[in-house]
């Protein structure tokens, strides 16, 4: 089996973190002059970009809804994002599934009834994948939606947790993800304490599940604290000036 020591005798993981520690987070808003909202988000070595357009005219006739906005989500991984170069498969199974899952997450949060017969596009691209890409994309999309000024019930935060060798771990990186243990991506609305996305791979006993679920919730709260701390300043800047990278 694996010769990698996922948890050292001192209790440290492969990258030196504690089991309940989330990776270092960095982000930037308003990168693209053309998009209504955009965000660049880093969680450890995972780097993603999100761009939001809307509410704008529906591109596919017949798809527009008379009483609310439709949300169009596209998740894709850049060909250079993984260790080996991927063949550019935008429509592969995994990307489509993640796109659908993220769309459902945001459909429950965005106040779509305010903009009937329009479309809100959320594009997410993974620039560097090191585990937890769908969670990082959800966080990036949340930030991009805030940048675009699209009304939401709450700020969505997402974090994954898993279990390796009987130890519950928060925010798995690629090495830990590939270990074959269970992976539980979770997205919550931190202020309302509601879950808007819950997925799980592999198998867990009920007791283990409770533990891993709790770790994921704590991870989400940690991420929320980090994002919240800087966002108030960013909002100040948004209101006073609009700083762009380009």
């Amino acid at each position, binding site marked *: 089996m694996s010769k990698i020591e996922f948890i050292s005798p001192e209790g440290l993981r492969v990258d030196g973190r504690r089991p309940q520690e989330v990776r270092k987070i960095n982000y930037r808003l308003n990168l693209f002059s053309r998009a*209504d909202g955009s965000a660049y988000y880093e969680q450890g070595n995972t780097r993603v970009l999100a761009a939001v357009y809307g509410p704008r005219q529906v591109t596919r006739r017949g798809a527009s809804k008379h009483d609310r906005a439709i949300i169009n989500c596209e998740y894709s991984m850049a060909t250079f994002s993984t260790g080996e170069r991927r063949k550019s498969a935008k429509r592969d199974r995994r990307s489509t599934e993640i796109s659908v899952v993220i769309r459902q997450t945001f459909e429950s949060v965005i*106040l779509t009834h305010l903009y009937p017969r329009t479309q809100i596009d959320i594009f997410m691209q993974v620039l560097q994948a090191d585990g937890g890409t769908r969670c990082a994309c959800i966080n990036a999309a949340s930030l991009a939606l805030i940048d675009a000024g699209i*009304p939401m019930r*709450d700020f969505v935060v997402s974090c994954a947790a898993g279990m390796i060798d009987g130890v519950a771990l928060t925010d798995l990186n690629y090495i830990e993800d590939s270990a074959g243990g269970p992976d539980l991506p979770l997205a919550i609305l931190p202020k309302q304490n509601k879950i808007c996305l819950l997925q799980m791979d592999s198998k867990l006993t009920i007791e283990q599940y409770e533990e891993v679920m709790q770790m994921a919730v704590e991870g989400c709260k940690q991420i929320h604290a980090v994002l919240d701390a800087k*966002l108030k300043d960013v909002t*100040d800047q*948004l209101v006073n000036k609009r700083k762009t990278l380009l």
Partner: protein
Amino acid sequence: MDIDKSLINTSLLPGDIVGTVVQSTSTENEGKQQPVRIGPGLTLLDDTLVAVKAGKLRYDTLTKRYFLENNQKRYICAVGDMVVGTIKETVGESFRVDIGTAHSALLDVTGFDGASRRNRPDLFPGDLIYARVTVANKDLEPEITCLSSQGTARRDWITGQSVFGPLKHGFVINCSLGMSRRLLDPNCELFKQIGDKCSFEAAVGMNGRVWITSEDSRDIVLISNALEYSQHLDDQGIEKMLNTLFKSR
């Protein structure tokens, strides 16, 4: 409704609770409870008043409303807004105008001061107009008009002196909604500072578009650049930037 007054003029994020509905049991309080008026950016969700955008909570003493001041690029139509629009096509007796909203706006061909069926402006796709929004409903197409409103002087469109109507020559730049609101503020220094350097005419649309014209086309370019750069600079930076830009003039 119990509003947390300490949050006024602070930055809020989506989901932040601004106030809660207070169920008053005593009858003497019922008469004293004033209805709380809310504006954009705040919504009532399950008995709590919640911020739904990122912005600063403000209280407007004139309209006595609580609202969220935010800055975004996408324009959402509101009645009474002045907008700079581009004619897209003529549909029957109206023009279809692009004002930046999800759906194009309709402008009646006779919606100009002094216009009649025989006497109306000849507008082609690509022409610019300055108009005000008369119908803005989430379920309907927005409607605009170039007729003068209560506060503006009424001049026939032929004279070219009307506030609303076709905009000839010049150039349109896009800016954020917050920037256009700031430009429309009577205390805005930027137009005065630019006016010190050269003469120009501008129309600011609340849809994030600013039309600028001047006699010399080089001046138009300089002013457009000045407005674009001023979005990222503070007051001192703006002064420096204007001096550098207009130095060669």
